[in-house]
């Protein structure tokens, strides 16, 4: 293999977002005026860090010694054998410190907050992983931290609430609306507007107003860069297919981004199919959504014909969101990434199968990606390679999952 095979061509082929934060007709910057200056200030600070060697060195140092990067690219042989088709690899983001990919972005943004002289960070969280990651990075860097979490999600993810509090973060229950991720974001935006002068909002996914989708993508793109190098070392070639679950879409973009320029790599994003693709029963924006603007960005949105945001449902709190990152909407329109969904039941089945065959309990979010692997791999050749992002570990979900499944019992 020569070096040209290994290097990414994505940045030349995929120059988004533009100066207005647009990915084609998606994205943008739709917030009340109070926050516009903060977004401009954030973008300027972020662009400075891209050229600041000291910042990049510090980030790389934390990634290696604190987060534990690079995370392994693991050949899931028992699952591969069981499915009888493509060779399945897991990118083990579940082994990153705090147990999910969320730390990549949270750490980057908290370093950025520190650099901007903001002593306080706030964040929203759904499954709790982004909240835990932000609380962790805030503890590491000595920042005050407040996490907004829907009270429904606090119930589903009690363990993560306790973890955040252990690390000194204040967890604020959000009782408005559907009491899930979307409402936590609304409340975080309100807090940010009131305290913008001394607070940075660590938005946890590739959604929200520009520059958040870009910043989060860039901090997560390390997943794909590592995967490229690791797969070349293991197999000497590109994968045939990549699979990741998509809530806001940060772990998926993180894995896919470096490969967007490689046309031979098929990419599949898996949304939450919930109990049924019918209003209020799922979170599959590309199946049931339409063009809209929610929380700062134009994208696909689950909404009614009046533009009121619809209720969503998923067994997985991290995928339970009414919109999706604008870059995903752009890749959907241009057919660069295919989107499908896995139902609650399929995710729960995959959750168990993965534990039994690989000794890895995936997060319920990541279990949606495993469900897609289970569907795809058997129809592919034994020489084909699938890389799936094991975006998080399932420890946080065991209490919640125990309501639905009884391990060891045939059902």
């Amino acid at each position, binding site marked *: 293999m020569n070096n040209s095979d290994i290097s990414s061509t994505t940045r030349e082929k995929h120059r988004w977002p533009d100066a207005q934060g647009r990915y084609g007709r998606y994205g943008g*910057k739709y917030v009340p*005026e109070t926050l516009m200056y903060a977004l401009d200030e954030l973008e300027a600070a972020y662009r400075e860090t891209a050229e600041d060697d000291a910042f990049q060195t510090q980030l790389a140092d934390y990634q290696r010694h604190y987060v534990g990067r690079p995370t392994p690219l693991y050949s899931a042989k028992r699952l591969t054998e069981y499915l009888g088709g493509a060779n399945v690899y897991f990118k083990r983001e579940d082994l990153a410190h705090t147990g999910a990919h969320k730390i990549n972005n949270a750490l980057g943004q908290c370093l950025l907050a520190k650099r901007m002289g903001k002593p306080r960070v706030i964040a929203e969280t759904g499954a709790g992983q982004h909240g835990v990651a932000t609380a962790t990075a805030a503890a590491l860097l000595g920042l005050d931290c407040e996490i907004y979490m829907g009270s429904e999600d606090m119930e589903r993810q009690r363990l993560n609430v306790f973890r955040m509090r252990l690390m000194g973060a204040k967890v604020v229950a959000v009782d408005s609306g559907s009491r899930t991720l979307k409402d936590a974001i609304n409340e975080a935006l309100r807090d940010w507007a009131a305290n913008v002068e001394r607070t940075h909002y660590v938005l946890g996914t590739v959604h929200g107003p520009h520059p958040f989708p870009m910043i989060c993508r860039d901090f997560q793109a390390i997943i794909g860069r590592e995967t490229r190098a690791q797969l070349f070392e293991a197999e000497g070639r590109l994968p045939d297919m990549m699979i990741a679950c998509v809530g806001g879409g940060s772990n998926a973009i993180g894995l896919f981004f470096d490969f967007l320029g490689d046309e031979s790599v098929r990419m599949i994003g898996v949304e939450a199919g919930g109990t049924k693709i019918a209003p209020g029963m799922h979170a599959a924006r590309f199946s049931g959504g339409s063009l809209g603007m929610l929380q700062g960005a134009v994208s696909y949105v689950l909404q009614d014909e009046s533009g009121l945001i619809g209720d969503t449902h998923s067994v997985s709190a991290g995928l339970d969101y009414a919109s999706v990152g604008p870059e995903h909407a752009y890749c959907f329109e241009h057919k660069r990434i295919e989107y499908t969904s896995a139902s609650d039941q399929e995710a729960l089945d995959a959750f168990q199968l993965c534990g039994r065959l690989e000794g890895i309990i995936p997060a319920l979010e990541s279990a949606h990606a495993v469900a897609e692997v289970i569907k795809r791999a058997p129809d592919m050749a034994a020489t084909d390679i699938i890389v799936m992002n094991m975006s998080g570990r399932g420890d946080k979900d065991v209490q919640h999952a125990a309501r639905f499944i009884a391990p060891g019992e045939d059902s």
Partner: protein
Amino acid sequence: MNRIAQRFQTLREAGQSAFIPFITGGDPSLAVSEDIAVALGEKGADVIEYGVPFSDPVGDGPVIQEASLRALKQGVTMRGILASVERIRKRSQTPLLLFTYYNPVFVHGVAAFARDVANAGADGVLCVDLPPDDAREYRDAMRAHGVSTVFLAAPTSPDKRLALIGEACDTFVYYISRLGVTGEKASLSEHLREAVVHVREKTAKPVAVGFGISTPEQARQVAEIAEGVVVGSAIVRVIAEAGGASDTTQRAAAFAAKLADAVKKA
């Protein structure tokens, strides 16, 4: 000239400030909101901000969030609000400014929305989460139908943005008197006077001040320094406390009359 511009001109000639009350359309019901709107006009409102309920009001504090939720529970949508404006217009000539979030406008279609707003008889639109930067198409559509566009200016807006905001507003600028979301506040910022002078200079437009004004005394203070005084949450709270009783309109009107009186005395 549209009614909002007309009213601001009349007030300027009289040396008075505009009293701009806000109510959420559909709280407690569209019929009562319409009665309240008509009564506000009779009690001295110069422009009525008619709030379009939205599922995710990120710019609002608890009082208006809850009002929005009550209206949504009755099934009030953008179309319902436009029909309501049409009914108000048959009973009152007070200038009406729709206060909305952008998504219902975006989903309606910006051009169709401008046309429907004009046909219903509303005079202006303020989209809380649409900054002027990305609003070219929206402004053109509104102007083509004679609908006034109002944008927010904030304490965090640097001079460059104030210039952009001033250019985007055709009649007046809505200055958010403090950081944060809508809601009542015990005292006003000591620096409000300087801030208003600065915003007026940089936007080159009359300034209406809102967010946090809740008493007649505060309204009077603001009227001394600004061309317009917006009172939202305090009125919405009076309506909420009436709990849908038959005298809801009278209570809201009585409170508004005190505010209007304070603004006009300044």
